[in-house]
């Protein structure tokens, strides 16, 4: 390995008297992958941006950052292009108005040596662009270059941003949560891609909650807690023998160990879990929900024997009357002058206190289905019934009780908040609008619910811009709960959250549905979330349910190959022949004309325990 490329010494970041990063030091050599792991708000992104010579508004950096021997601070950013940055939302850094190819060529021209004949000046950037696209496994044809960024899938956008970094000649790549919200198969691709970059001599700093990914690609890891480094070392060693309590807590529920039902027991037994949630349980669980909907709550309580920890007692589907019933739902997206059918006759039922997980690859129609239920998308045919009564197809025709009854927690929490108003006001709003409370009472209730999701008082009086992505996710959940819903739709609510916070959220949601009979519709790519929450799992593919069954069966013995590849335990996947061969073309690729079906590398998925693919 060559010498140290990145050296961070005694890095501190302060904002308004709060320490975001406190005395963090590490080094990173070319060709190595270092993972920064920690809860949301632990300072990972602040460190990542400090390496780019950037600091958020009001953030003061001290300490020393050296990239390739050259000191970096906000006044002296690293030479353009040497540090590549792949943000959590790659679409945000792609100019919506400019074609993919134009921008790639501009970057290439900027970073190629000047001079040469006219022909060379024309051809060299083209070759460089093709080479960069090839390295990130994007098609190199004209069709891709002519597109606008919004015409690419999320995975392609991310690879395009990496291609930008490659063209600019980056030595160091900072990847912020590259697997957030991606399905299992895409996550394997990301892992393979990062490993390949490191293999080609780039230093990669990975900021991630995704322990699968960290385990699969990182040579070393550094655990952060409230801006402090609590533990660091080779990944395998840290995973095998975590020394610090926080590390143990973060690693406590490694996905491979999460069997259905067991996790919530672990949470409560685990000493010192900051489980205000668990302690507050008797009494608090939303009185709102109680007095609004006594009927479903009674249903939930009458359920025979619901000790929260027994897997086998998970309710089967029959007997209980369904609270939510979707029948023969057909939905289309119009755009580009033509219609595309997204759902073709989907039906599902959900009882009070039950949790149904919708899984499927991106583009399979999960979110559209959820949006139809919530009244955000008008289906072409089919019905959505709540407690036997049909719900209006659009929001404006639903009355307040119906609006309150179906609540939606969106995947992009930041986009679901008005950036200009304090979080507390926005969280309290549903209680005023839908619950008819006074503003004061609503704020009081909002504070209580925010406290339950683990957001402290001083944080929630700020504008959303001052909260981290994970914190906003929790605020969005609190806002939905404050409406007193009977059906809660959770669209990737734990994407981008660290293990501890995720655990907390999952425990809370699980409690609510058990205590108040909340019906949960969960969309998740995360097997662990499905294993923790779901009673039943429905697998969507190309707008239809290809398989549907009790969670326990689906997670271990699904029949359909797609269900297996999406749901089965990673370790199991490694033992069994990999199901890639029989995965039919995904809707995402079938829909897009460009060949996106690049190599899938089963070896490099989170399945591999060692780092074999790194060498």
């Amino acid at each position, binding site marked *: 390995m060559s010498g140290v490329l990145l050296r961070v010494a005694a890095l501190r970041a302060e904002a308004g008297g709060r320490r975001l990063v406190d005395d963090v030091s590490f080094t990173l050599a070319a060709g190595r992958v270092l993972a920064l792991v920690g809860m949301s708000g632990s300072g990972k992104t602040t460190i990542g941006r400090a390496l*780019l010579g*950037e600091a958020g508004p009001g953030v003061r950096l001290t300490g020393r950052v050296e990239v390739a021997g050259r000191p970096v601070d906000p006044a002296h*950013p690293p*030479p*353009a*292009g040497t*540090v*590549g*940055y792949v*943000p959590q939302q790659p679409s*945000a*850094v*792609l*100019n*919506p*108005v*400019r074609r993919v190819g134009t*921008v790639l060529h*501009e*970057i290439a021209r*900027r*970073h190629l040596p000047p001079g040469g004949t006219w022909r060379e000046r024309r051809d060299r950037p083209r070759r460089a662009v093709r080479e960069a696209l090839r390295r990130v496994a994007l098609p190199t044809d004209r069709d891709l270059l002519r597109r*606008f*960024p*919004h015409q690419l899938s999320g995975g392609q956008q991310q690879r395009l*941003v990496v291609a*930008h*970094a490659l*063209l*600019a000649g980056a030595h160091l790549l900072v990847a912020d949560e590259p697997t957030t919200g991606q399905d299992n198969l895409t996550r394997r691709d990301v892992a393979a891609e990062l490993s390949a970059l490191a293999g080609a001599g780039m230093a990669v700093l990975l900021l991630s909650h995704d322990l699968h990914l960290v385990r699969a690609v990182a040579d070393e890891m550094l655990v952060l807690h409230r801006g402090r480094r609590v533990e660091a070392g080779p990944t395998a060693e840290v995973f095998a023998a975590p020394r610090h309590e926080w590390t143990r807590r973060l690693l406590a529920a490694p996905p491979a160990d999460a069997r259905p039902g067991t996790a919530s027991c672990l949470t409560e037994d685990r000493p010192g879990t900051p489980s205000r949630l668990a302690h507050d349980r008797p009494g608090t669980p939303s009185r709102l929900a109680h007095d609004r909907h006594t009927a479903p709550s009674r249903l939930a309580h009458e359920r025979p024997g619901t000790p929260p920890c027994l897997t086998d007692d998970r309710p089967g589907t029959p007997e209980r009357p369904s609270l939510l019933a979707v029948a023969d739902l057909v939905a289309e997206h119009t*755009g*580009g*002058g033509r219609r595309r059918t997204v759902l073709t006759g989907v039906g599902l039922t959900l009882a009070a206190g039950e949790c149904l997980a919708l899984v499927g690859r991106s583009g399979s129609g999960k979110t559209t289905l959820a949006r139809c239920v919530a009244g955000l998308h008008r289906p072409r045919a089919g019905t959505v019934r709540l407690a036997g009564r049909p719900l209006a197809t659009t929001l404006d025709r639903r009355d307040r009780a119906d609006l309150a009854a179906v609540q939606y927690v969106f995947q992009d929490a930041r986009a679901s908040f008005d950036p200009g108003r304090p979080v507390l006001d926005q969280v309290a709003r549903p209680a005023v609008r839908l619950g008819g409370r006074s503003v004061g009472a609503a704020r009081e209730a909002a504070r209580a619910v925010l406290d339950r999701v683990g957001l402290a008082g001083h944080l929630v009086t700020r504008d959303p811009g001052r909260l981290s992505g994970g914190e906003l996710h929790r605020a969005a959940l609190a806002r939905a709960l404050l409406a007193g819903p009977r059906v809660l739709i959770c669209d990737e609510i734990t994407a981008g959250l660290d293990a501890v916070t995720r655990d907390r959220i999952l425990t809370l949601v699980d409690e609510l549905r058990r205590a108040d009979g909340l019906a949960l519709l969960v969309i998740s790519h995360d097997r662990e979330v499905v294993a923790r929450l779901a009673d039943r799992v429905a697998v969507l593919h190309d707008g239809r349910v290809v398989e549907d069954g009790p969670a326990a069966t689906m997670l271990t013995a699904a029949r359909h190959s797609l269900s297996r590849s999406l749901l089965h335990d990673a370790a199991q996947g490694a033992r069994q022949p990999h199901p890639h061969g029989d995965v039919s073309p995904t809707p995402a690729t079938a829909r897009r004309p460009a060949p996106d079906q690049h190599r899938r590398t089963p070896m490099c998925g989170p399945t591999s325990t060692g780092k074999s693919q790194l060498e």
Partner: protein
Amino acid sequence: MSLPRYATGRLLLGLGQVVGVATLVFVLTEALPGDAAVVIAGDQPDPERIAAVRTALELDRPAWQRYLDWLADLLRGDLGVSLVSGRPVADVLTANAGPTVLLAVLTLLLLVPLAVGVGMLAARREGGRLDRALSATVVGLYAIPEFALAVLLVALFGVHLGWFPPTAVGTGGNLLAQPAVLVLPLVVLLARPVCSLSRLTRAGMIEAAGSAYVAHARRLGVPGHRLWLGHALPNALAPVVQQLARTTDWLLGGVIVVEAVFVVPGLGTALVDAVTARDVPTIQGLCVLVAVVTVTVNLAADLVAFRLAPAAPVAR
């Protein structure tokens, strides 16, 4: 959706809109209370005049026949004959369109660089003294109605200082023969649109310059002027183009107040004259002309906006 496909769809829609306006114009004349000829002929009509109007408008034929003829004539570019001068309406409009189009084109040529430049400069110095000065000036200009500004300019530069001719009287419609007459009308026509367009540019530039994609391009070594012009500006321009369409429309319709104050024989003057004289064929012709201009200009603006905001849902 591809651009040609979108353009075709919008073009068909535009044609439909023009036919709709033409129909509406015809129906309105039909809907005049009582005997249209009596109404049109004036306050103290003599029988001969009424008879002449009736013949000219062919009021003795059934309405549907006249409607079909009206559409067929429109297709051939025949807008009928003026009741006042007896000249073909098309000729009247062509003669009056000259000065209006000249003023509109010159205004637009000055307006676009000026407004976008002012907006970008203000955005560059956001919150600074220059930004505040520019903003105060353009908003102040916007607050003055055209007639007040026109009268003020005529009084100051036309009469008191005598730098520019106060009116276009004597040019006979050929304004280019004496370019100095253009100066004051141009200033008045520029005063208001500069404000709306520069404010939109400023807001769009500030938003785009603070965006993640501009920061990303900066990290990749794209130099300052390219960031500003190549990466931020295209994103800021989509709303500006839509507003520019409104402005163009307003200018090509003939700004009545400006033409009246400066005595420019343009379309606005023609409209005022036609309405005063109840010259129905000319009014109808003007309505159709304005409709065609509006539809065309907005079509062009939508096509440009389609390219400038490719990810946005398109206007249909």
